[in-house]
């Protein structure tokens, strides 16, 4: 069991530089004022409608995600290294996708087993042999990181399909600036509000070659019952593009069109926030009413670009994850800047043996699981739970990977009694089009329960504003 955690504000050698200006801020804050501000923040989130809709689970359908007012801070120096590492990883993941839907060089070279790719559920045969504009498959890459020391970051997972949460990054900043303007006047916090402009530029840059005018970009949502609907409308709004549902689009001839008050209008780029399986009932799930019949044909014939490409999920599988450092070396010829968490693949018999012997000390995850479901945190579980889980792993080893329990860093967080360290992770959003870009900011998720290492919003985690302090 891990006993010491890196505290991002108060490390063993005292108050760390990035946080110096915040020390006085919270120490001089009377409790009543803090309560007032916390209520004000909640009111702002509710008024903006920044909710996380959870339908069909009972309770408030428009739940607020808990917001912690204590910002998390990075120096420009720390951020530069993260930024280089993230961009590198996003480039390698895209090179991998281009490769496995084409010649499969990395498989021929014996670096990644063919089964892992071609028998992967996320592998989309419909895309094989197709090269999307600029060869980009994943246009928005969300990379989850954790920190374990002053210099040590680990990548936890890659999200190449439709990573969510970027609206919290933007709205957390909005709310902080509104509530504590003096903090921003006194500190050089790098702005994140260029994100929407970069996203729009990225999407427009991958318009099909057939598009000979200002590209018409739309955002495709499953609709307002989706838990991330707020984010979809928020992003469409910031980019000044139409937020469409499947019923608003139709295919006619070589192109995809949307229904407007002036009649049909041609669509060039679709930023889709629905899963592959729902995109086109003629190609994928025939029972889905969310998608657009015939869309995949138009896509493959170069009439429209879908962002991210169907099949991009094959790169963010937890079994493929272990090979990302190899991808960086293979495709880019570079040394990986960011480390993977050491991972045991239960599909390998030696690894399985180790995992079953040491399962009480490990975190074991389903290969396709997400949202904190289907995982075992060994040190935090009782014997019976561990035994049940071990049996499941033994029965179907290739469905599991295991990692050591990381000593996740903590950040000061407002709790009932005042300030206390809570575990955090980090999700920056990397944009890949003609350029590869990253705004100086990210979503920090925080485990609000004392001692908990699970930060997912579906598991009661909260969020905080993430600052990068610009240099003088």
């Amino acid at each position, binding site marked *: 069991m891990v006993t010491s955690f890196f505290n991002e504000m108060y490390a063993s050698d005292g108050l760390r530089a990035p946080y110096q200006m915040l020390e006085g801020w919270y120490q001089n804050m009377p409790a009543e004022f803090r309560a007032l501000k916390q209520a004000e923040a909640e009111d702002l989130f509710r008024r*903006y*409608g920044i909710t996380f809709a959870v339908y069909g689970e009972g309770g408030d359908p428009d739940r607020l995600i808990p917001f912690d007012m204590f910002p998390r801070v990075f120096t420009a120096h720390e951020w530069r290294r993260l930024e280089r590492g993230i961009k590198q990883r996003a480039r390698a993941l895209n090179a991998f996708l281009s490769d496995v839907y084409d010649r499969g060089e990395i498989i021929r070279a014996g670096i990644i087993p063919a089964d892992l790719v071609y028998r992967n559920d996320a592998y989309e045969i419909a895309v094989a042999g197709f090269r999307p504009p600029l060869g980009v498959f994943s246009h928005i890459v969300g990379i989850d990181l954790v920190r374990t020391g002053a210099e040590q970051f680990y990548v936890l997972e890659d999200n190449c399909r439709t990573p969510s949460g970027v609206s919290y990054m933007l709205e957390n900043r909005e709310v902080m600036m509104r509530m504590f303007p003096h903090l921003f006047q006194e500190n050089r916090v790098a702005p994140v509000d260029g994100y929407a402009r970069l996203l729009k530029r990225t999407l427009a840059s991958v318009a099909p070659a057939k598009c000979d005018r200002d590209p018409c970009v739309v955002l495709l949502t499953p*609709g307002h019952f989706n838990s991330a609907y707020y984010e979809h409308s928020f992003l469409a709004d910031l980019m000044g593009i*139409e937020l469409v549902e499947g019923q*608003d689009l139709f295919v006619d001839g070589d192109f995809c069109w949307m*229904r*407007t*008050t002036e009649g*049909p209008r041609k669509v060039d780029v679709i930023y889709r926030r629905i899963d592959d399986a729902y995109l086109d009932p003629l190609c994928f799930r025939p029972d889905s009413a969310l998608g657009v019949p015939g869309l995949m044909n138009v896509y493959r014939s170069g009439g429209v670009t879908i962002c991210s490409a169907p099949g991009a999920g094959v790169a963010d599988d937890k079994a493929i994850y272990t090979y990302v450092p190899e991808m960086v070396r293979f495709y880019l010829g570079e040394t990986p800047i960011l480390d993977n968490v050491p991972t045991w693949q239960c599909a390998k018999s030696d690894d399985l043996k180790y995992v079953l012997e040491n399962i009480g000390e490990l975190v074991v995850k389903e290969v396709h699981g997400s949202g904190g479901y289907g995982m075992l945190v060994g040190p935090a579980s009782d014997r019976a739970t561990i035994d049940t889980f071990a049996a499941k792993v033994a029965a179907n080893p290739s469905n599991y990977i295991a990692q050591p329990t990381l000593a996740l860093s903590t950040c000061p967080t407002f709790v009932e009694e005042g300030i206390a360290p809570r575990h955090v992770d980090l999700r920056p959003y990397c944009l890949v089009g003609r350029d590869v870009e990253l705004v100086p900011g990210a979503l920090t998720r925080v485990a609000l329960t004392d001692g908990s290492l699970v930060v997912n919003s579906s598991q009661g985690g909260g969020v905080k504003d993430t600052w990068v302090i610009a240099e003088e």
Partner: protein
Amino acid sequence: MLSRTAANLFWMTRFLERSETTARLLDMGFRNALLPNTGGGYRNEWGAILQSKGVLQPFTDKYGEIVQRNVESFLFFDMENPSSVASCIRSARENARIVRTALTSQVWDAINTSYQELMAMQRLERSKLSTPDLTDWTIRTSSLIRGAIESTQLRIDGYSFMNLGYAVERADNTARLLDVKYYVLLPSVAYVGSGLDNYQWTTLLRALSAHRAYNWAYGGELSSVQIAHFLLLNPKFPRSLLSCYAEANEHLDQLARIYGRSTPAQESARALLGELAEARIDDVFDEGLHEFLTRMINENGGLAQSIHDQYLTGEAR
């Protein structure tokens, strides 16, 4: 713009306007109930109010006897009644939520806040809320939303669809409110010109926030002919049928300019405006006020259908 977005905007304002009319009807019933019951012989006025909304049957199915307190709950809070204030505001907010991208933050804020306040009111004990408080709240809320739309929305097509929703719904509601008074409320023609008759006319004007305005325009004497003229044909009164169609025409013309093409929707609106601009109140009474109102309600429905066919389906016609 997306046809679906236009449809959501159109229905958002229709629901907002409808919630206000339900509140005004509630006010009308409340004031009528303050009148001493003289002879007993005539109908329960709450029944007439429910009948005008077409909800008498669902009400009696659910609550049985017509008791004021239940009618108030039904018309204001009951989510199972699709024309209750609460239902309309919830529907308006749902439409607004779907088209967040087409609304300014102030408009969204106004609509969303009204919904949150409504939810808070719902949790209060009913004895803490008087009927005038509820109607005042509704009218104040809808003014706030309307004001936010007027002062912040860009003057683009979406703005015209919102105003078309208001105009079409308002025309329908004015016609229905007048019809309640004339056809449903008064027990028999023998009462025309009686004290009861006059009290009901005053109540109707009050419910439309038009009591003072009427006095300014017609010098204070109540007469059914003048009040009908005021509510139907007076271009100065913003809720008159004529004003509603002037508004509808303005926004349909605006759409034709933006899109560079005219459609049958413009024609039907123009025909309605033409008829009302030319009409004399005697013509209306010759046709029969109830018959005239019924025809107007139908033609108004036709106009709404035509707007739907031309703009809200995504087919270029």
